[in-house]
């Protein structure tokens, strides 16, 4: 009689398997942190004088060179906004068909669904800076490379979310239209579109907000916009100008966020 009677059995929240998995996770986490801490290379002397260096940086940044704004910043800032907006628009144009191909209630073919999803995943897993590097090599430095980078990075994001929104559309209105003999154009325009429209605008605005932030750094690899101005100012140690550009980016990001919040309330 080795089996414990039910009354003596101790109640535990997790099965042994779950406990083992959690233990493995904690162990792995601690091990990863310890190993990284022991092997990471940094010079302690740099850390000691970090406050001093930071103070020096701020001193060099002050006073902010406001006079430079109309000369070298305004144009680059507008270019950044154009890169973000046009890139997002281009991404939407390419992502909507891909999203339709990836949605299994629109395209009833598992192979095509899978292929479209693969394309969307590969677009997302390459960072926008890497996309920018590739397009700079193809189109040369400039805003065109930046626009393409933003577009190709955004396709995966927009396409995935749009495809999922299409999959969640209710079938009732679609069936009603179909049984009334509506052509396929009407089915999409009057059946699917009104259902996915709020999601579509939410995705587009969200992505545009992210694109504005990302397009500000694409210039560091030569893909146009304010990043290029920052890069050259930094290389010449003109920190007063760098400070001005950082303030400008901050203002644009905040304004973009306010605009997105406003439009979201208005449209959705």
């Amino acid at each position, binding site marked *: 009689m080795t089996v414990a009677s039910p009354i003596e059995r101790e109640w535990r929240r997790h099965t042994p398997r*779950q406990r083992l*998995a*959690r233990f493995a*996770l904690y162990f792995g*986490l601690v091990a*990863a*942190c310890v190993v*990284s*801490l022991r*092997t*990471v*290379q*940094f*010079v302690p002397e*740099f*850390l000691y004088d*970090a406050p001093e*260096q*930071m103070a020096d*940086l701020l001193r060099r940044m002050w006073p902010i060179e406001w006079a430079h704004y109309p000369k070298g910043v305004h144009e680059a800032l507008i*270019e950044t906004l*154009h890169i973000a*907006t*046009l890139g997002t*628009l281009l991404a939407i144009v390419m992502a909507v068909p891909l999203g339709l191909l990836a949605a299994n209630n629109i395209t009833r073919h598992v192979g095509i669904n899978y292929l479209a999803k693969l394309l969307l995943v*590969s677009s997302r*897993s*390459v*960072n926008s*800076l*890497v996309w920018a*590097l*590739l397009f700079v*090599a*193809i*189109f*040369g430095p*400039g*805003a*065109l490379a930046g*626009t393409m980078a933003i577009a190709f990075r955004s396709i995966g994001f927009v396409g995935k979310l749009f495809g999922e929104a299409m999959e969640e559309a209710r079938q009732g209105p679609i069936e009603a239209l179909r049984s009334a003999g509506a052509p396929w154009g009407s089915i999409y325009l*009057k059946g699917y579109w009104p259902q996915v429209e709020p999601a579509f605008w939410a995705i587009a605005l969200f992505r545009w907000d992210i694109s504005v*932030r*990302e397009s*500000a*750094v694409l210039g*560091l*690899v030569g893909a146009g916009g304010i990043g290029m101005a*920052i890069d050259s100012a*930094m290389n010449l140690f003109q920190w007063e100008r760098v400070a001005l550009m*950082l303030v400008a*980016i*901050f203002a644009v*990001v*905040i304004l973009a966020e306010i605009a997105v919040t406003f439009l979201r309330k208005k449209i959705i």
Partner: protein
Amino acid sequence: MNAAVTARPPAFVPNWPARIAWIALALYAGYATSILDVSWARFVTGVDNGIRFVGRMLPPETEASKMTLMLRGIYETLEIAVLSSALGIMLSLPIGLLAARNLMPPWLTWPTRLLIALCRSFHQVIIAILFVKAVGFGALAGILALTVASIGFIAKLFAEAIEEISAKQLEAIRATGAPFMNVILYGVLPQVLTRFVGFATYQFDSNIRNSTMVGIVGAGGIGGTMFAAFQKFDYDYLLTILLAIIALIMVSESLQNWVKKVYQ
């Protein structure tokens, strides 16, 4: 009788504001494209360049000394991701708690929320530039930059999750006379722990992605090696590094799925 039927409004009313918005969007797209000076000739040379570019990328570099250099870069990238996530998660817990408006007084939540917004508003690479100046080239700058970015993301979502919890459990624990720390430990944390784990794993994943990039401005990791290969037109080595980064991201993504399953 018949008149009432015919007077019924049409099923699909034309939405003029929306149509005008669409037309404006199309006009903008045309205008912005004209600024970019995209021409057919440029497109053709671009395609030509693209083919040559891909041709020079193939086959990927596999020379032993460059492979060890790349592996060292990947290893440093992982170190940056692990340490910045650990530091970011640890700091986000208290900061997120301080920013929750249902637990803390307004004079505490407002400054904290401002701090979080400041952490969020700049791209990681720009923060990395500032830290490279402060602590010099190397992994430490990357760790600090990604820590700041992690705080901006996790602390914000954590605060929002806390604001959504049910107040009944808090009341029950307060009614037993529990001190403040116990209210947090037994009333708040059990309600938000799963979501916090979700945010943390998501942030670890995005830290891995971003730690491959901060090297471009000299903040350590594989990004520096990659950017150097790009600037030296060493495109076949660039392809090797890109493939390694994509493999790293895929491993990290499956790891994220596993952690989510453990904690669901």
